[in-house]
């Protein structure tokens, strides 16, 4: 029995016996290699669920939207499960709100080129960090060795080069907020960019305001980013957002000790809302 079969069978059971009211997975579009997230409430739809190497969407964020309707069943890989941990640790949902069927993930592929997606090539945890049951075996992928390769490359540029580079990035941004919408760390009830507050954030789409948005977004997810890479994948303009996210993670690691966010439900408070008397001092 493949993982997909197990998922379909379990989804059906869970919906039929009322253990969950909603189930989140993926379905195929016109082609097998074109999938979209699928939310079902009817057991008879369970056979629409697919689980293959083209399931590019990370599902965690969907849990937030449907959890108000009752318990949610969902399929989780490493990234999805860490997203769920994030949501739980940020009090967005409760652990009891979700029933998680884990699948091991060896990475998903671009539907056009068939190549491993960038986010998956960089992924450090293909297997779920929490789940209620596993469908199939863990994938047990080895971790890629260079977590901060990209960051390092940018760091090696000269200052004017870096400045030009990111000016270009922000010139390209269209402020569609897709990066925010897919991010399981972006869970504010009302995002700061959506608020109508004078001088809080400008709504114009220009380089300066885009920079303001981007830097603030990075600082907001800093010590909580789960490195799922969804922001980068979702960006219609192809902006290298993980270079920013990982820069902060790298610095937090270097300065305040190794960590990885959202690995357990009882994780330590984030690096930016804690301190150590003997933290290093770079200012003087």
């Amino acid at each position, binding site marked *: 029995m493949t993982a997909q079969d197990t998922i379909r069978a379990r989804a059906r059971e869970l919906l039929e016996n009322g253990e969950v009211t909603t189930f989140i997975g993926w379905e195929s579009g016109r082609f097998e290699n074109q999938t979209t997230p699928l939310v079902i409430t009817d057991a008879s739809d369970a056979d629409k669920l697919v689980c293959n190497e083209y399931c590019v969407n990370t599902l965690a964020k969907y849990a937030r939207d449907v959890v108000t309707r009752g318990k949610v069943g969902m399929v989780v890989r490493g990234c999805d499960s860490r997203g769920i941990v994030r949501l739980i640790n*940020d*009090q967005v949902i409760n652990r009891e709100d979700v029933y998680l069927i884990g699948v091991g993930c060896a990475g998903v592929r671009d539907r056009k080129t068939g190549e491993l997606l960038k986010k998956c090539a960089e992924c450090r945890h293909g297997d779920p960090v929490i789940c209620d049951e596993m469908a199939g075996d863990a994938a047990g992928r080895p971790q890629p060795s260079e977590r901060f390769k990209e960051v390092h490359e940018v760091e090696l540029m000269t200052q004017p080069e870096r400045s030009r580079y990111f000016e270009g990035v922000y010139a390209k941004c269209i402020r569609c907020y897709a990066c925010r919408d897919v991010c399981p760390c972006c869970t504010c*009830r*009302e*995002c700061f960019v959506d608020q109508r507050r004078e001088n809080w954030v400008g709504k114009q789409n220009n380089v300066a305001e885009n920079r303001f948005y981007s830097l603030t977004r990075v600082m907001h997810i800093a010590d909580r980013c789960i490195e799922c890479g969804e922001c980068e994948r979702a960006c219609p303009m192809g902006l290298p957002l993980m270079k920013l996210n990982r820069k902060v993670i790298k610095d937090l690691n270097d300065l305040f000790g190794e960590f990885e966010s959202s690995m357990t439900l009882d994780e330590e408070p984030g690096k930016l*809302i804690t301190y150590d008397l003997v933290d290093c001092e770079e200012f003087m």
Partner: protein
Amino acid sequence: MSRIGVFICYCGSNIAGTVDVEAVAEMARTLPDVVHVETNKYTCSDPGQEGVRNAIISHEIDRVVVAACSPRMHEPTWRKLLADTPVNPYMLEVANIREQCSWVHKDREVATAKAMDLVKMAVAKVARLQPLHSTEIPVHKKALVIGGGIAGMQTALDIADAGFKVTIVERETSLGGKMVMLDKTFPTMDCSACICTPKMSEVGNHPNITVKSYSEVENVSGYIGNFEVTIREKAKYIDYNLCTGCGACETKCPQKVVNDFEQGMSERTAIYKMFPQAVPAKPVIDAAHCRKLAQGKCGVCAKVCPTGAINYEDEDKLTTETYGAVVFATGYKLIDWKPLYPEYGGGAYPDVITGLQFERLVNASGPTEGHILRPSDNSEPKDVVIIKCVGSRDPNKGKAYCSRACCMYSAKHAHQYLDKVPDGRCYVFYMDVRTPGKGYDEFYMNTLHDGAQYIRGRVSKIYQEGGKLICKGEDTLTSQQVTVEADMVVLETAMVPADGIDELAAKFTVGRDADSWLVEAHAKLRPVETNTAGIYLAGTCQGPKDIPDSVCQAGAAASKVIGLLNKDVLQSNPQISHVNEAICQGDGACVGICPYGAIQIVQKTFRENSRKVTRPVAQVNPGLCQGCGACTVTCRAGAMDLLGYTNESIMREVDALCQW
């Protein structure tokens, strides 16, 4: 539409000497919402203030900018002034054009331009301010003192004598703490019991003091003036209203238990008073050892009690009361040296004892009636070694700090030993002798003249051979290895905070240092206050100290409490954090960052999209919040904001400044 009034001060020539005040005023008139600009030679003078007051009335001003000296100088003056006018005292912004402009720049043109900018910033900010109102916090005129040792008793007595009610919570069955265990006190050598027990009975009989012995703090909520404290009074199994303290039960109880008060050197019964002069002078039953309570058999005490005070069904009692102030006087304990110093036998040799054990040995009411006898064979030791700094100044095995009182009490021990055993020899191994106190060094010199042999060096090892305790040390002054074949060794062990201090302090959000000593608000200027308003420190809970210092600090803490309890109400600072519950997500990032424990996550029900939704939101306790704003930065959505320094007002200021 706001109506801003701008008042610019010449400050004689202090400002006007470098800044073209009239030009600044001219510019200010062009700023949006500014309806009135006025200059004054001395705005803070009476006529100056009168001018401001009149202008507010005649121009219907609702926000005020004062461009003058530093707000650290006169902000309170302006607030007071506005309190008498229709303008809210917090609708005020001060532009510092003296200390940070006219006094530090020489070029008139440059300074004037900067003054204009500072006024622009102030105008921009004041336009975004909202009226704030301080609330009055009632003060419950009652104090809680935690700990009934000498510091706690002194604090309680001082507060009670000033006419306020005090409750002492004491964990043990009697007041007295460590001091009552001591034999004599340096440097005067007066008998510890003789000066401590009268204090105990004074406390016990004081009409304003309630003693809750055998009790601990269970729970705390509230803030300065209003601490709601739940106290757990452990079951004593004796009705204190009936008990006369006759002691018949103690003489008949068949169960023997190691006596902690005597430092394990004698036995007591399962129904017991800690010591004869205990206050309250009534016994309790030690439930863990009582045969009746543990095994259901016995009941002798109930049979012999003439008043029927024994109640085996007794249970812990919880009471909750509100206190205006809390004093920590939780004291210290001696470090458990046994696991730390296997080279000293790790507790295997009965004649290696601690200083507190020595105090009991030398005490006339102690287990040996004041005769110094070895615990192992009750013989009189002729060679005694005293080792200082066991656990102190030893980051490897114990604590890095100096325990401060040991130099003096080891000198006292040497003196007492030589006094009682004139033909004995006493060696004191020390690294430094620290005697900074009145009469202290004289006392130490006297001990030397008594014949105590001071050896500068730490002892490396103690082992037993032929009934002797062989102590290997170095006399670092002659660079010789030295050996003493001792009969008894006294270890002067380090002071460490009392058990359970971490949990207790956490309940009150009182800070602790790395060694768990409680942290004062300022090492020099606020030595008995904590960072949580309304909570004070007395005695060794703050750090090692001797009796005079503890009593001194107790008096200081009491005077702070009296000052607080003398007020009927406190004015709250309205510039505190504020939660916009509509966007608060309740993820609690702000909770941990608050140094005052002022933020809580609570479940609240809202009507949202015509549904009832119960969700977590942050709640700021206005009594605890001090207005630092650390929480605001953790709030990504900006639901948490600091009144008086709101995100919007600061951003406005930045913007205004960027236009110069």
